[in-house]
């Protein structure tokens, strides 16, 4: 588990083992139920990740991919379509990150969730459904498979296989140049912000 998120760093690739969890429409209530959000920091969110799936009646569900020992140490989550839909809670990507997830390969992402991942430096990329199925099958068969997400070349490789990945170009650039937490870049534009503000009519209405 990582204690803190680095402010600014270049990410050109993510290399590691995968965890297959490919149902469609996994929502942020699944990733972190609301009752665990009654804390004013994100520090302990990692232990609540997928809580209601991973624990039933207080007992660990050993077959859940995030509990299954064979995927232990995996840092790349393999997901389905519309991953992270529902609530905008950043607690969800924070929980995944603090659990140890560094990248998510999905068929597609819900918008708000994808934006939240990017601001934390979690690499979210998409593959077509058929490629997701192949990758998940490979990991299920060989959990020690090493996956490489190469952002420079926009491809994902594992066991001599390769597939073209997609992500919004602006987001890819922000990983490659280390500005995925955009605050410092945004803050530089003081005069542009001021001139935009001046031309917005409604801000002057009394």
């Amino acid at each position, binding site marked *: 588990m990582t204690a803190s998120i680095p402010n600014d760093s270049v990410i050109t690739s993510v290399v590691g083992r995968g965890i297959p969890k490919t*149902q*469609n*429409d996994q*929502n942020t*209530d*699944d990733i972190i*139920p*609301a*009752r665990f*959000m*009654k804390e*004013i*920091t*994100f520090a302990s969110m990692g232990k609540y990740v997928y809580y*209601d799936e991973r624990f*039933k009646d207080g007992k660990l569900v050993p077959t859940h991919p995030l509990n299954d020992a064979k995927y232990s140490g995996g840092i790349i989550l393999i997901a*389905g379509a*519309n991953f992270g*839909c*529902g*609530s*905008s*809670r*950043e607690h969800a*990507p924070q929980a995944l990150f603090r659990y140890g997830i560094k990248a998510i390969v999905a068929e*597609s992402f*819900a*918008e*708000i969730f994808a*934006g*939240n991942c990017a*601001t*934390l430096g979690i690499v979210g990329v998409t593959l077509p459904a058929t490629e997701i199925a192949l990758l998940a099958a490979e990991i299920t068969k060989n959990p020690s498979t090493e996956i490489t997400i190469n952002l420079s070349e926009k491809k994902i490789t594992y066991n001599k296989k390769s597939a073209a990945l997609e992500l*919004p*170009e*602006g*987001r890819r*650039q*922000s990983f490659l*140049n280390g*500005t995925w*937490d*955009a*605050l410092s*870049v*945004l*803050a530089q*534009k003081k005069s*542009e*912000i001021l001139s*935009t*503000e001046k*031309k*917005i*009519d*409604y*801000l*002057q*209405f*009394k």
Partner: protein
Amino acid sequence: MSKNTLYDKVWSAHVVGELPTGQTQIFVGRHLMHEVTSPQAFEMLRDKKLKVAHPTLTTAVIDHVIPTHDQTRPYKDSQAETMAAELERNVKEFGVNFFANNSGKQGVCHVTFPEQGLIWPGQLVVCGDSHTCTYGAFGALAFGIGTTQVSHVLATQTMAMDKLKVRRINVVGKLGKGVTSKDVALHIIRKLGVKGGMGFAYEFGGNVIDSMSMEERMTLCNLAVEGGARSGYVNPDATTFAYLKGKTFAPKKDFDAAVAFWKSVASTKDAEYDSTVDIDVTTLEPMVTWGVNPEQGVGVLEKVPALDAYNGKEKDEAKDALNYMGFCESQEIAGTKVDVVFIGSCTNGRISDLRAAAQILKGKKVSVRTLVVPGSEQVKKEAEKEGLDKIFKDAGCEWRFAGCSMCLAMNPDKLVGQERSASTSNRNFKGRQGSPTGRTHLMSPYTAAATAIEGKIADPRKYLG
């Protein structure tokens, strides 16, 4: 690519510039917040020794954790008390506006902020809450954002974003008796799917939308995100302007100039869209969800689906949903026994929603536990002035204070075990209402009220004369 739509106009007006990554830096004209997704953002500011750039453009309220039964401080739940106290500390320290408890302005964020007149056409609005899309009802561009982005907005009044595509959804025909904007929204999500709106903002138009009240439009736009669209909006018109006139925080001296500006942001007749969908709602009946996401809905007189209607992965998911909800395939949904009815939330906690529920409950008795939770202190006051509270209490309902209550159960209102709820809220996700095995059916206030009387899912139309 869309052209001359409200989305294009409002987006362009807020562009600060292009970032080195190619993303757009946009100015945020209105920033709203609640206690759940903001404390970490203020902490990020403290860490970096930053101030709030434009404190007057941010307004906060406590809604998710506030108990709706006993609001005495400190709250019995010490975690809830800590969260409320933290927001109170932050708004004071950073100087942002705050709708304090018992000020007459507290309420569910997406109910009280528009009700107080903070939301206007042409604004770009963000809030650390996915249902921020509610404000699209005014012809504002409104998006949910995450907490790190909240810190960006606090520190710079801007954020990095990519532009969305725009889909025009024409809703035409004539709504039948007892069929509401909630039913229209659930119907659209059923037709287009929870993934249908990914990458899009939805522009809702057509004669059915034109004749909707502002509160009905808010219900509709509130559910845009449940259809996968980060934002949804309705072009501003005379209904919008009439609603805003005289509201506490709406323009006063400049009202006429404001109206002229507001008219100018609407999509033009020659606007171009990335996609257009036409939906006729003439034969629509009240909708009820049967599954674990908002697209899994049927008309109240329909049956839950047969598994043969699905293939592959979708079939597994439908089977899982039926199993979780305790249904057999092809079963009638009407008549399903419920344990709890919840009337409230940012979807349906406004005064018109309570009037609708009261219309059905007047002179009747509920047969299951029924919570009626006004969306704001003002809604509560108005309802009590109209005697709606008496109708609810006489019917055997619990009449509460304002808050999010059982929509997401970050407060004492929760389902227990496999309890089944009929809820006017927005998400029927597994565990959403506080029990990991709880079951939720989304529906309109009319349908929820009829269901409360019968103790089982009921068609409200027979109660509407």
